[in-house]
């Protein structure tokens, strides 16, 4: 397995806090103008776990993620991360707590290079103040170089060396998804939330992505929550799967249990067939 070329400690800006990433969602309910998007959902994610959330379109998967990452405010229920109640925190505060994500419809900065996109994700790890930056003191310069080095490590890991100076807007879809993963990793999240990272990819690109996720989970010991429709990927990567339907949790269990659950088959997978 490919490991970091350089000192992996470089990447651990916040080592003192450790990698603990225990998420618990309790009785979460989210309504939008009359529609109940998420209804009394309870969910746990333990440190080091790989959890997938599946379910039909409109089942509330993305809404659930948006509550966890602070984009939506749930009306009822609570979310806590590492024992801290984070229900009403803003997105940017949650990022500092260590929750990083990718988006379903790719939310990159299209007018910037891959490198700038990744550097932007280092925002919370900078230490220099406003004045040293405005006057470009040596301290600011040193830090810029340090973060650049970290970002280059990520570029190496995700095999994006050849596109580092390309504008993100000019990249094909599959690569943009990869850049987005890189950007989420540059945040150094303890909990990595991925919203349909495989959508629109062909088999080959999916295999690359599976490789990256497997290494992230296996070697880097990241805690990962994945929302995805491709069942073969979900079944192969996850340790545990939660199924949502009409905003409610329909089932939860190991991939084997979910595959054999008749209700899940009826609501989501459809009768299995070989082709």
């Amino acid at each position: 397995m490919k490991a970091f070329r350089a000192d992996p400690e470089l990447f651990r800006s916040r080592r003192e806090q450790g990698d603990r990433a225990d998420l618990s969602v309790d009785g979460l309910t989210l309504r939008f103008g009359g529609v109940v998007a998420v209804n009394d959902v309870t969910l746990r994610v333990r440190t080091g776990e790989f959890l997938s959330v599946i379910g039909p379109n409109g089942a509330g998967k993305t809404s659930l993620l948006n509550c966890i990452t602070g984009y939506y405010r749930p009306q009822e229920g609570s979310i806590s991360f590492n024992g801290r109640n984070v229900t009403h925190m803003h997105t940017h505060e949650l990022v500092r707590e260590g929750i990083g994500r990718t988006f379903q419809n790719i939310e990159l900065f299209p007018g910037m290079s891959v490198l700038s996109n990744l550097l932007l994700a280092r925002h919370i790890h900078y230490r220099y103040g406003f004045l040293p930056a405005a006057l470009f003191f040596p301290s600011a310069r040193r830090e810029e170089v340090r973060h650049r080095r970290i970002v280059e490590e990520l570029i190496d890991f995700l095999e994006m060396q050849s596109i580092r100076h390309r504008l993100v807007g000019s990249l094909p879809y599959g690569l943009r998804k990869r850049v987005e993963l890189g950007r989420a990793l540059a945040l150094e999240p303890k909990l990595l939330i991925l919203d349909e990272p495989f959508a629109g990819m062909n088999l080959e690109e999916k295999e690359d992505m599976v490789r990256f996720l497997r290494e992230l989970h296996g070697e880097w010991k990241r805690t990962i929550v994945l929302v995805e429709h491709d069942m073969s990927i979900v079944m192969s990567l996850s340790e545990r799967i939660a199924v949502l339907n009409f905003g409610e949790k329909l089932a939860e269990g190991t991939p084997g249990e979910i595959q054999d659950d008749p209700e899940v088959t009826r609501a989501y997978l459809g009768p299995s067939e070989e082709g």
Partner: protein
Amino acid sequence: MTEKLLQVNNISVVYSDVVQVLKGVSLSVERNRIVSLLGSNGAGKTTTLKAISGLLKPENGKVTDGSITFIDTDIANAAPEDITRKGIIQVLEGRQPFKYLTVEENLRVGTAALREKPGPEKLAMIYDYFPALVKRRKSLAGYCSGGELQMMVIGRALMAQPALLLLDEPSLGLAPLVVKEIFGIIKRINEEQGTTIILVEQNARMALRIAHFGYVMENGKIVMEGKAEDLQENPDIREFYLGTKADGERKSYDNVKAYKRRKRWL
């Protein structure tokens, strides 16, 4: 029966006068057929569709070489309004609903290219194909789920009574059950309305199942073509697009290795 409806002849497409995306693409589509276009991201599938529908122009793209013949006229670089009027309608990737219009208003926009506006029976037909839309007809499209939206945009395109329907990744981001449903409907539309369809898909398994013919694109070129059944049997297609091993067993992501096998045509 085997009349050519569309003939794309050796076209090259250049964006902003500098970036060449298509390098001599040829394909032909027979009437009443579903033709599937497979290939990696960035291979030029969407660009091919846009070259046919004329939607390159707003993006600063241009067909610089070759011709696109629809029935008997060359439509390369024609204005999108003229092409849609001839009966070619493209359903864009990523659904692209009119968020602030209701579902029914969205469907009504579909008739823009028609000189004679169809009566209510046309709407009824769409609702017949997509019963899920009936209860959403008065709600804003922006609040519909992905599956509903995909149905709506296909329905919207059907309102235009297309002779040739270009579908760009209709299964993108949809749940397995919905994907099955949508592909079923596409097949029905083809059979019942006689609509010719070009289908761009990452989900090669589904696409080849309903298509009659298939093309594979890589790096702006067509690298393989054939009847859908033949493509399904081709070992490379099986390995790289369908994810089936030579012995017919479905490949599992459990065995993804740290190295990649290269495609032999690259």
